[in-house]
């Protein structure tokens, strides 16, 4: 018998996600957000001009997705990520399918690795939906024009477009860390609601701590700060410190809960109905 691999588990996790309405609600919401932004701005004079890159709105469509991302990073992105990652193991407990798949030929580690990769893929799909919808609606509304970056330098539209994709990649890293914590809670609590709410509270608590504690040294190493790490890409010259910090701090915030999740999942009993 040819043995199943992590890739087998990953493919089927994607197929399961693709078969559930909830998956499309999150991605649909991410795609709808920039369109709503454009519609609302069309009916009013003001706008979020104080937000990073916000001063570009109405002048170029390139900046829209990143402005929306700034707003989404306060709450929405974490919520949608937690909705999927917090449910990914707990729903198998609740549905009693875990005992079915654990008596097949896949190792427990492969099953959890497949679920983790699927959660990361979902985060990427979510952000891609937001970026693509943001670019399309922004370009239709305000055109393909140069962007004034955070150092007040003008950069070409094509350069800004490339930076937008890079920014999305940097933003994805701390969001994956939120997903990792949600997966840990999903394994530990065996309860989707507890895992989703717990992951959200975890993300919001870091936001609150960052706002309350006025110690930069501490603040810079919270997950919430890493969600703004991409700002460094839109400075001249590129300010790499927050970008690199976003990657390594988020990597720690990802590795610790994931290690705990694997340790628990490999040893845990599978409870009854």
């Amino acid at each position, binding site marked *: *018998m*040819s*043995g*199943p691999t992590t890739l*087998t*588990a990953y*493919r*089927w996790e994607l*197929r*399961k996600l693709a*078969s*559930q309405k909830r998956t499309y609600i999150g991605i649909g919401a991410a795609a709808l957000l920039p369109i709503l932004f454009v519609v609302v701005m069309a009916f009013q004079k003001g706008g979020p001009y104080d937000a990073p890159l916000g001063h570009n709105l109405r002048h170029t469509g390139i900046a829209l997705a990143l402005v929306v991302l700034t707003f989404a990073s306060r709450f929405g992105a974490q919520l949608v990520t937690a909705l999927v990652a917090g449910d990914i193991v707990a729903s198998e407990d609740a*549905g*009693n*399918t875990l*005992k*079915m*798949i*654990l*008596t*097949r*030929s*896949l*190792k*427990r580690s492969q099953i959890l690795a497949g679920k983790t990769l699927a959660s990361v893929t979902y985060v990427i799909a979510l952000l891609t939906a937001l970026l693509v919808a943001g670019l399309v609606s922004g370009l239709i509304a305000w055109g393909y024009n140069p962007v004034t970056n955070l150092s007040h330098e003008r950069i070409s539209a094509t350069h800004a477009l490339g930076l937008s994709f890079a920014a999305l990649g940097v933003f994805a890293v701390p969001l994956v860390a939120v997903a990792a914590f949600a997966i840990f809670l999903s394994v530990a609590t065996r309860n989707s609601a507890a895992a989703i709410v717990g992951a959200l509270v975890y993300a919001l608590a870091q936001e609150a701590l960052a706002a309350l504690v006025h110690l930069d040294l501490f603040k810079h190493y919270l997950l919430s700060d890493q969600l703004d790490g991409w700002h460094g890409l839109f400075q001249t010259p590129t300010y790499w410190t927050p970008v690199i910090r976003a990657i390594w701090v988020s990597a720690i915030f990802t590795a610790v809960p994931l290690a705990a999740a694997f340790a628990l999942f490999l*040893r845990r*009993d*599978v409870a*009854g*109905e």
Partner: protein
Amino acid sequence: MSANGAVPLEGRGLRRRYGHVVAVDGIDLTVHAGDIYGFLGPNGAGKTTAMRILLGLLRPDAGTARLFGRDPQHELPEALEGVAGFVETPHFYPYLSGRTNMELFAAFDGGDGRGRIDELLELVELRDRSDDRVGGYSQGMRQRLGLAVSLLRDPKLLILDEPTNGLDPAGIRDMRGLIRRLAGEGMTVFLSSHLLAEVEELCTRVAIINQGRIVYEGALAELHASAAPRYRLRTTDHERARQICAGEPRVRELAGDGDALTFIADEQTVVDLSRRLIGAGLGISALVPETATLESLFFQLTESQTG
């Protein structure tokens, strides 16, 4: 014995407690190749806990389990090679069709079973509904899908938990027929059930578990043979016959049952008793041994311990 000489399923001294409750208390089980092994017990006796330990889903506090010589606690998924089945009701992804669920489980086994999906859907009579979502299946349909998914692994040992739950009478008949057929083809079957008639009809060996302990393990025929023989007596003078039987110290559990008497005695006592009855001028219209049913033996074994 399997190809590697190991018995299909073996548990030794399995013990598991939940808080203060000892669910499984040092049980020993041995399922030999070719057995249709019935695992019987009242609700809460520890059947499911034992099965979960045997499949590696639950860690025992003490004891060891072996599937074809491999330890499901430390050698998963290798220990499950040649083993398939389910504990409690089989569950599936409700938003996927029956066929897609089968494809998923086939993939999780390495993909070899994929080519058998149609054949197995046909076998459990689900082919017509295979493209419907499992969320719309009845419990009986899920039971049948559970069996099909188990057979995807082409197992040598099939572990089934209440496989006829939720099936209509025709479905029960078909499921039992299928189990017999699979066993006839050389598959070893471990069947947990609370349906005594089902176990009596299908199984060759049984284990009876009560309050976490095995109160009997062995051949069903030996269990019947081990039971003290009960006789039914009908005579021309019921009251006089009762007096004679009551006066015989080797007669036990004498009871009236309509116009007949029932009692437990060994064969020699029955011979002596028949002579005394005839000597007293009574006509014997019936003196017949009654085979103990599994039900009566089950209650003897489980209630004597409970009491």
